[in-house]
């Protein structure tokens, strides 16, 4: 790494500032398109406008989760601190997206399915279990102690969760077959063109925000690690000074 840090005291850089500006611009476009551009749905009426935030949240929950799983594998294979940091950062952002997916989904479900929550729905229940597993993952990360040990623990959970998730999904699918969830809002061709376009704007905004947060979160973890190293150095220096005094 040849790059030397700027003197400015923040975790931003030109990349993150560009990303951040794009997120804000995209968000304005998304709100305008979502509320005034896209037409209302024949069945759902205006409730359909929730999908512009719900579906991107759901997609990027899984993107974040896959990132965590990849980072976990890379830690286990190569002991790469870089990947471990990425895994932890992605998990935290994924938890936020996952919570928002569940929240917007149930707020949308109330007028559309006439219920906030449906235990028979595969994606709902699978996502909830994923949410709980991510809480467990992050709580293990936050326990402190030896860094390598924490990374290994977290990585094993990351891999286990990724391996279990298809089983969770299958089990919920068999459990109740009367799924309420829209099977394929994206692919069944029922969506109006402008609705679809707005949805893709949503994907873009969420993707950019994911990248922005991932970079910032990564740098925060990195700074925390540096700070611990600095504290350790200082403590060692003090000990050495004490010894020399004697």
């Amino acid at each position, binding site marked *: 790494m040849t790059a030397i840090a700027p003197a400015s005291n923040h975790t931003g850089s030109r990349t993150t500032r560009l990303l951040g500006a794009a997120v804000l611009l995209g968000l304005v476009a998304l709100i305008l398109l979502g509320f005034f551009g896209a037409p209302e749905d024949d069945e759902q009426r205006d409730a359909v406008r929730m999908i512009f935030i719900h579906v991107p949240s759901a997609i990027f929950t899984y993107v974040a989760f896959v990132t965590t799983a990849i980072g976990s594998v890379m830690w*286990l294979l190569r002991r790469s601190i870089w990947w471990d940091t990425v895994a932890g950062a992605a998990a935290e952002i994924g938890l936020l997206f996952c919570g928002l997916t569940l929240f917007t989904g149930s707020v949308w479900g109330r007028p559309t399915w006439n219920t906030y929550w449906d235990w028979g729905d595969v994606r709902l229940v699978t996502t909830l*279990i994923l949410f*709980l*597993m991510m*809480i*467990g993952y992050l*709580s*293990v990360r936050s*326990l402190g*102690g*030896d860094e*390598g*040990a924490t990374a*290994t*623990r977290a990585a*094993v*959970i990351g*891999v*286990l*969760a990724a*391996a*279990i998730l298809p*089983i*969770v999904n*299958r*089990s*919920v699918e*068999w*459990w109740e077959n009367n799924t309420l969830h829209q099977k394929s809002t994206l692919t069944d061709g029922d969506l109006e063109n402008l609705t679809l376009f707005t949805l893709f704007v949503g994907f873009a905004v969420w993707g950019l925000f994911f990248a922005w947060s991932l970079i910032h979160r990564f740098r925060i973890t990195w700074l925390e690690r540096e700070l611990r190293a600095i504290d350790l150095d200082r403590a060692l220096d003090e000990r050495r000074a004490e010894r020399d005094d004697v």
Partner: protein
Amino acid sequence: MMLADVLLVAAKDLRIEWRSRVTVSQVLPFALLVLVLFGFALDANRPVLDAATGGLFWVAVMFVSIVAVQRSTSIETTDGARRALLLAGVEPAAVFLGKAAAVALQLLAVEVVMVGGVIVLYDASIESIGLLVATCLVATVGIAAAGTLLGALVAGVRARETVLPILLLPVLAPVLIGATRAFDDALGTVAVDGWAWLGLLAGFGAINIVLGALAYGVLLEET
């Protein structure tokens, strides 16, 4: 060689269990207590209790498994016993399989008593004993494997008593769903194909056994 080590570790854990009598004197009463509490909560509403018997049974097993895994883990963490096992040249995978087998056997013993409890307390009738036994066996193997893996994972952590349930219970969610459905069939409460669910439970068990055998060594050495 490997099998001998597995049996050795399992026998060691079971011998410790037998001498301390924790399973008999604490885990078993705890399991029955949970069943009684569910009874208090629902008995006034007999049809609900009948319909929910399978689910209540497996929720109780989940609670019991946490206690059993914590017990199994603490055997290894006290006095640095797990380091000693490694130094003795036992394969980590064998340690994992042995400990999981010991946990599974204890859970099965508790489940046998619990089935009796469900028959007496909840007035359940068994329609397919084969399915009932098979479900208990397959589900318990999965629970024991996942529990032993996660137990080792949190072994070196200060807050392990509180972290273990947070990690273990979501992972066991498919077991709860699958085993409950299979029990619904075995007890004749809901018309579903219980045997189909056994495949799912077996898949869960296989994943956890493989992952556990692979990851246990890393966890033992690095945490």
